[in-house]
């Protein structure tokens, strides 16, 4: 029994590795990636405009982090990551069905759950490579002149971690939608820009039913100033619990996606 489980795990590992490398390669080549790569540069432009504005208006340096959290991180977490995760997550399964290329995967010695995990891993890395350089640039544009402080770099690592967690969580959820539903984009949009946004305005524990709540709980909090945006009702969860929750959400939804993909038949229109 245990040797059978071991063999299955080994096969799962092999499948993950093969699918990961193939789809990381394919993902880098796709037109969609090029378009989204350009789009992910938007926050850098926003940061540059804010920085120029600060310099010309003579705004103090203390507001730099507040600006970054309130405006740029909100743009990343509530728009860019959701859009990227929606299109890449749902496409994990649906691009194969709509492109009628699924048989290239399912007629090879690959475990079905490994196919989903491999593509999830490849797209997580791809999205991280899209978002993190942009985050790096926008953060350091805003913090130009403070680069001698270690705290600046530590804060960046924190933001980068939140971003990666956001990618993992949303990508897993949208991957599940893509494997379970025939038309996942509309529901994904409703979730990403409806549920996730509206729930933040609910007081008490209701907002804990959104992914973004845990991500925001990991961000440093600054006193609400004129840059305060969509955060005033946040009732944060403990950072450690937030990390665990996002990882659990990711594991649960990617597990469900693997299960759905293993059990379902995907019949493409001939």
């Amino acid at each position, binding site marked *: 029994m245990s040797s059978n489980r071991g063999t299955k795990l080994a096969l799962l590992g092999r499948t993950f590795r093969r699918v990961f490398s193939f789809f990381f390669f394919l993902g880098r080549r796709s037109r969609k990636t090029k378009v989204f790569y350009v789009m992910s540069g938007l926050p850098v432009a926003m940061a540059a405009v804010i920085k120029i504005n600060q310099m010309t208006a003579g705004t103090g340096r203390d507001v730099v982090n507040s600006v970054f959290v309130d405006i740029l991180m909100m743009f990343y977490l509530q728009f860019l990551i959701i859009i990227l995760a929606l299109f890449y997550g749902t496409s994990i399964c649906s691009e194969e069905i709509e492109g009628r*290329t699924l*048989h*290239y995967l399912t*007629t*090879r*010695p690959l475990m079905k759950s490994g196919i989903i995990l491999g593509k999830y891993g490849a797209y997580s890395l791809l999205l991280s490579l899209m978002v993190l350089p942009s985050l790096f640039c926008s953060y350091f544009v805003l913090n130009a002149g403070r680069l001698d402080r270690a705290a600046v770099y530590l804060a960046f690592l924190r933001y980068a971690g939140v971003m990666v967690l956001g990618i993992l969580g949303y990508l897993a959820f949208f991957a599940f939608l893509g494997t379970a539903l025939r038309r996942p984009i509309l529901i994904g949009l409703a979730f990403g820009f409806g549920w996730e946004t509206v729930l933040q305005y609910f007081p008490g524990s209701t907002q804990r039913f959104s992914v973004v709540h845990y991500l925001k709980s990991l961000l440093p909090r600054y006193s609400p100033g004129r840059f305060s945006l969509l955060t005033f009702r946040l009732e944060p969860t403990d950072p450690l619990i937030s990390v665990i929750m996002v990882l659990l959400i990711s594991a649960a939804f990617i597990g469900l996606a693997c299960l759905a993909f293993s059990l379902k038949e995907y*019949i493409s229109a*001939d």
Partner: protein
Amino acid sequence: MTAVIQTVRLSKWYGNVLGLNNVSLEIEPGITGLLGPNGAGKSTFMKLLTGQLKPNIGEVLIWGKPVWNHCRHLSKIGFCSEQDAFYEEISGWEFLTGLLSLQGFTPAAAGARAEEALAIVELAQDKDRKIRGYSRGMRQRIKFAQAIAHDPDLLVLDEPLSGLDPLGKRKIIRLIKDYKMRGKTVLVSSHVLPEIEAMTSDIILIHQGRILAKGDIHYIRDLIESHPHVISIKCGNVRGLAAEFVRAGFVRKLDFGPDDDTLTVETHDRDAFFGRLPAVLLENGIQVEEISSPDDNLQAVFDYLVGK
């Protein structure tokens, strides 16, 4: 001889539509042709064999083992889909090496095998072009190459000749025959009888999800010979032509088109009719615009077989 493929009471339906109905058969090494009109259930059968679909009833065994959700058995199977679908953004070389890496080959081994497969399908010179820019024939050949690149023992080919020009068809037929010569098993589907006939004499007749017959192609030929043929001739003097054939014993029925420019002949001896036709046309100086056989297709034969 041991059966490579065995299906037991295999049935598959899509909602209310029956795809395959109670199919029990065994397929042995060599080339086997799966012959049937469009929508007969050929693709469903092949998808069940390659583990893409799960049977509703019955089972599929390849080398005695089930395939649905048993992916390890798929390493020795090559599948060429009828669908013209690819990862378009990459080159033919990248497509093959990528799929070989999914199969488990190291980069070096995948490169060597891809090189070999590209040479076999005569695409070595175009290997660095993006698949998006390939012609229909090239796409069909690269699809064939991905099916054979890992040297499978069982090759399942769904309409591999569709959309190819005669030269392209001849190349693929030669490749399939070469594959058989290496002791492999090939199951190839088509709705065109002469295509199957050019590859093998072992056929399975499938229609409306049921297996009508399995055996030698001469059986089908005999059925076709005994089936009345309808031949339509568009010419300037249809009544003169009809007068020449009205006394011929092999003609069963003559019919004139609405504009009196087409003669439809029903015969039970197609060879005798076409043997006589050129002489009649020459003797009477009749100019022919078009000759067609409205029912010279597999659908007509199947309709005949199932008694429609």
